[in-house]
């Protein structure tokens, strides 16, 4: 008698290479970094020195005149936005049932994220509290033009 032995296993069709491993790793690395970055940011801005009363336009202008705080805020901006967007992406992948909706939402997420990163980065590096040629009454009191 001929016995045909069924192939015990037909592996799941291999899908294209994916970035899930790197996405997961990024979340683990950016998470602890963000805890340090954000809480230091909050303490420096709201607790130390004059506390919450110190915050005004001049305070922010002063911080962004210092390359240290520029890099700090840049790191916070990039890490928080990518971390948050990637988290939203996993939620979309879980709950969007239609493939078109899922892909559409994910594209929207990354476009918004990229836009915010570009705008934020631009502000951090091109911020000038006393732009030359601005109307005098619009300038803050500490500008040399006053």
């Amino acid at each position, binding site marked *: 008698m001929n016995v045909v032995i069924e192939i015990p296993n037909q592996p799941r069709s291999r*899908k294209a290479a994916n970035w899930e491993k790197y996405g997961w790793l990024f979340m683990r690395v950016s998470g602890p970094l963000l805890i340090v970055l954000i809480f230091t940011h909050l303490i420096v801005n709201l607790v130390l020195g004059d506390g919450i009363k110190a915050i005004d336009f001049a305070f922010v202008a002063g911080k962004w005149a210092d390359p240290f705080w520029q890099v700090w805020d840049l790191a916070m901006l990039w890490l928080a936005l990518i971390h948050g967007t990637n988290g939203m992406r996993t939620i979309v992948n879980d709950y969007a049932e239609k493939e078109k909706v899922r892909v559409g939402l994910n594209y929207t997420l990354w476009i918004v994220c990229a836009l915010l990163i570009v705008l934020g980065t631009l502000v951090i590096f091109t911020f000038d509290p006393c732009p030359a040629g601005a109307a005098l009454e619009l300038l803050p009191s500490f500008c040399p033009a006053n």
Partner: protein
Amino acid sequence: MSQPKIAEVASFQVTLIVRRFDPETDTEPKWVDYDVEMFGTDRVLDALHKIKWEQDGSLTFRRSCAHGVCGSDAMRINGRNRLACKTLIKDLDISQPIYIEPIKGLPVEKDLIVDMNPFYQAYKDVNPFLIASDKPEKERLQSPEDRARYEDTTKCILCAACTTSCPVFWTDGQYFGPAAIVNAHRFIFDSRDEGAQVRIDILNDKEGVWRCRTTFNCTEACPRGIEITKAIAEVKQAILRGKP
């Protein structure tokens, strides 16, 4: 000589509310109550038997060994995945009705019976068998330490309590699920096995280990007490290292 009196086992009335579905007559599942008199030594499975044998023979559920080894009677009891044969009724809050539902995330076929095929398919996909190239004349030896490495994950009985307690599995059923990863873990960390790389590649999938959110539902649901979330984390580490 008088026989010493043996105290009678206490009995009590208990209400079971069972999620029932008959594909031939129902379009939606419905809750049905049953009152049964049970004893302190009875399990939920005994209550289901009592209903089936004495009240309503159409009640449908799976069970085989009835002793917590075959893994047939996983069901949702009071919102938690358990084996009906390992859950004593007296350990539940019997002042309230006991709710019994089929496990979630797999298609219900009838009453408490679900279609287990998607679950078994994920299991088959991880190659749950020894892959070894040598042809030994006698048994393959292994040190107690090497054996201890994957001891925990050998305990799986494929009851699906873990996979069907996983919120990621509920969303679309595409995720491999904790049980498949546990069984991959059992071979990935077996020193006699040579197929770890294959399984690591399989689980480094969009629907593989990275969908795990470490909610620990699986660990809590496992009737064998396997530390499933830990096993999944170890497989993640193995994938990051590229080797077990």
